[in-house]
């Protein structure tokens, strides 16, 4: 049951990920990416990480992809605006990626060394995560605020119109 679910979700994830790349229309790409994200959220639930799954949906599907869609709509991107990329380059890209895949899969074989750690189940619960995050990973957590602050300041600085207050 779980395995079948895994197959299904993985198939859907890979398929829609491919469609992200090969869709002509950016809006379709966004939608396919959203589907991919949902399947990934499904994987999280399979892996017993519900909190992460929900946060994943909120952050990626709920915020990030909305922003993407927003910008695509704002800039009126459509299939005509995509410049032509020569077939040779495309071919090269496919070859490169294929090689990468082969190399990755080849090198990722042999996972015997990972020993399944026995321990309490439910590390995906908020409580466990909170413990780890606010004890062990407190500093990175705090530093993230600097990161977000920088991003915020930067985004405002770039996005703000300087001349008049005409909004785009």
């Amino acid at each position, binding site marked *: 049951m*779980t*395995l079948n679910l895994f197959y299904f979700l993985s198939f859907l*994830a*890979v398929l829609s*990920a*491919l469609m*992200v*790349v090969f869709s002509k229309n*950016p809006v379709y790409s*966004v939608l396919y990416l959203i589907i*991919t994200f949902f399947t*990934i959220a499904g*994987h999280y639930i399979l*892996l*017993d990480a519900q909190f*992460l799954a929900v*946060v*994943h949906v909120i*952050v*990626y599907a709920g915020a*990030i992809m909305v*922003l*993407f869609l*927003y*910008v695509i709509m*704002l800039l009126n*991107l459509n299939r005509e605006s*995509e*410049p032509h*990329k020569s077939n040779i380059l495309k071919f*090269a890209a*496919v070859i*490169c*990626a294929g090689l990468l*895949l082969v190399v*990755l*899969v080849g090198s*990722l*074989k042999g996972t*015997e060394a*990972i020993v*399944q*750690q*026995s321990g309490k189940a439910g*590390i995906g619960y908020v409580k*466990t*995560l909170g413990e*780890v995050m606010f004890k*062990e990973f407190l500093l*990175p957590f705090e530093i*993230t605020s600097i*990161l*977000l602050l*920088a*991003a915020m300041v*930067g*985004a405002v*600085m*770039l996005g703000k119109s300087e001349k008049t207050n005409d909004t*785009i």
Partner: protein
Amino acid sequence: MQPQNGIPIDYYIWLAAALFTIGVLGVLYRRNAIIIFMCIELMLNAVNVLLVAFSTYLNDAAGQVFVFFIMAVAAAEVAVGLAILIMMYRNTKTTDINILNRLKW
């Protein structure tokens, strides 16, 4: 190795590798900046899946905590990236995105 949900870790590694590669493929294959951008997000998500899988299999919450940092960073990157896009748009004052295609590699 049989973890609690019955799926070998290899599967997750392969899944992550596949998604990651598709992301890389997209970055190399497409010229449209925003799709490249999305493919990068896809790469990050492949990483996230793998991290969560490892975290579950190693029974170590640190992996999942790391995912939060990746998410935070992804969000920050999106904000900045889209701001840059908007800035370029405002400069060209046109909906034509061809300006992005000065990016050649």
